[in-house]
């Protein structure tokens, strides 16, 4: 087990290096010399430029610059944002919290709804209720998250049942911790619901198919032949085996959630990483874009690592290798 996780960690190193390299290359590809662009910007003081030149080796060859940049990343120095006049790491720290809470919130909701529905669909395969659920799932898979977000905003604008935009209400200052938490949650609800609704469909279909596959597998036939009660067959044997592949796709799911979150954040006005990177692109704030991209990638890597560990915990074939 320990060996397996260490091995996975070890495998991540080239991946991380590759990711930083690609993030770096993307910035280098942008037209014009970045350094001159800095100098032409009247809002940036010559001291800042001098400081950055030293830290990031901006006048050195590209490959050397890459290593300068890499060295800085490990000390969490992600450079200066030119539009905000603050360190990029500071901006990311604020926004990352919101993106992570949005992603975890909707991941949790999606799984807690889709897994039982998938089991139900698997048991009812071929009946009208299963066909109905599958049709709804198709709609969920196909509806663009931004379109659904806009529809929900339209609905809320008519009914005003939930707050829109931002993370906090005006009365925020002076409220108790609990009130603050509830307020945050209320604001989280709109982007969270959009992400959940667009995520349930595919997860439901996967779970249903896995459950069906497990039900039709030889080892479940054995349990029938053993004469153990049906509920135990469903919830012990079929469920465990159906959940396992779901854990493997968790990393992939996370990629979808993060991407979806990015867009939904922008539409619903939730200040997360997605909006940060868009702001970076619109103001040509390249260090901000580069750092956001990298952080997005690192989040995904962490998610994959998490699912690897989880898989090792649940699957003896992985654990005891």
């Amino acid at each position, binding site marked *: 087990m320990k060996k397996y996780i260490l091995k996975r960690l070890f495998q991540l190193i080239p991946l991380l290096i590759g990711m930083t390299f690609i993030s770096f290359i*993307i910035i280098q590809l*942008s037209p014009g010399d970045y350094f001159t662009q800095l100098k032409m910007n009247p809002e940036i003081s010559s001291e800042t430029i001098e400081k950055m030149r030293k830290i990031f080796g901006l006048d050195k060859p590209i490959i050397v610059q890459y290593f300068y940049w890499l060295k800085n990343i490990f000390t969490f120095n992600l450079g200066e944002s030119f539009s905000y006049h603050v360190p990029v790491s500071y901006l990311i720290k604020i926004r990352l919290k919101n993106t992570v809470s949005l992603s975890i919130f909707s991941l949790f909701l999606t799984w807690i709804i889709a897994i039982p529905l998938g089991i139900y669909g698997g048991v009812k395969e071929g009946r009208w209720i299963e066909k109905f659920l599958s049709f709804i799932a198709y709609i969920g898979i196909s509806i*663009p998250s*931004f*379109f659904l977000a*806009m529809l929900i905003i339209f609905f809320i604008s008519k009914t005003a049942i939930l707050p829109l935009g931002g993370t906090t209400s005006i009365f925020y200052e002076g409220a108790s911790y609990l009130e603050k938490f509830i307020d945050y949650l209320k604001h989280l609800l709109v982007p969270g619901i959009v992400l959940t609704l667009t995520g349930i469909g595919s997860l439901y279909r996967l779970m249903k198919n896995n459950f069906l596959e497990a039900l039709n597998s030889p080892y479940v036939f054995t349990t029938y032949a053993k004469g153990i009660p049906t509920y135990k067959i469903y919830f012990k044997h079929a469920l465990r085996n159906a959940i396992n592949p779901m854990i493997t796709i968790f990393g992939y799911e996370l990629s979808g959630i993060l991407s979806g979150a990015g867009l939904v954040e922008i*539409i619903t006005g939730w200040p997360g990483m997605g909006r940060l990177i868009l702001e970076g692109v619109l103001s040509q704030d390249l260090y901000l874009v580069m750092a956001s*991209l990298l952080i*997005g990638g690192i989040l995904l890597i962490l998610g994959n690592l998490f699912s690897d560990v989880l898989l090792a915990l649940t699957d003896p074939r992985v654990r005891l290798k």
Partner: protein
Amino acid sequence: MKIVLKRLKKRNKISYISFCIIIFLYSVAFFADFIAPYPYNKQFREYPLCPPTRIHFFDHNKNFHLRPFVYEIKLVNPALNQYEVIKNKIYPVYFFVKGEKRKILGIFTSERYLFGTKQGKIFLFGTDIHGRDIFSRILYGARISLSIGVIGVSISFVLGFLIGGISGYFGGKIDNLLMRLVEIFMMFPSFYLMLALRAVFPLNLSSFQIYILIVVILSLIGWAGLARIIRGMVLSIKEEEYVLAAKALGLSTFKIIFRHIIPNTSSYTITAITLSIPGYILGESALSLLGLGIQEPYPSWGNMLSVSVGNLRILSTAPWMLIPGFFIFLTIICFNFLGDGLRDVLDPKNW
């Protein structure tokens, strides 16, 4: 092809219907010049955010008219975009009506269009803030939104096929290296990667440049997944007996790939392509929606929605502005249904 469609019609009605809708959408996009009652950039300044025009058969005196008609509409409150229907002004709707001269498909000019009114205005889906007909803009926008998916997927596919094929067929170090590269690309959340790649290029480009740019960005994001799928396929087919047999017979690598491996991947490939088109359509829409893609006055389904983003007033008073989103949804669900149907039908096990 015909056999596949027949089987689709018999086995999976809903994907057959989806196929018909897709064909319909593409032909409508192709003939947009002829079907659209107005050019995409024609602004009717006196009709901003006008609600969809109703087509009537009965007038306010309950008299039946065989030829459908529309009423005259008038903006009464510019601040709230309130319109009033003037009941005594009736304009019949004609087919092949005469209008302004327009180029059709860029080749010949015409002054007759599929439908319209001689006087008065007909806005089937309403108008946007500049008073442009949303119906016409959706038709023109379909050209961009629908073509980008197909072009993008073809480029990604060529890339994916080459890289995945090489990786799977030759294996060893090449495979290892290429797959690490694929992994790195897949480890970035696609939305972030899309924006970062967009940041590399200047914000204001000509619309043609932007179109090409979007295709390139989307293909750069999409190739990795396809390459991985194709590699897996090639790996499994490589182990199949008929390929081993071909090898034992001394066939050249080239022949094995083109005579045995490619034909055997085709059914899977068609399904994979169909199911990945929605991703490209979504990518274009998202970029245009955020103002990073197709620029005004050219319409795409994505950028037609961008005015409503964060603008609660427009969203709540003019919900017809969201109609382009419905078309994105319709196209995507049709491709998904079609892809699933094809997977079902093309699988030799189901014959």
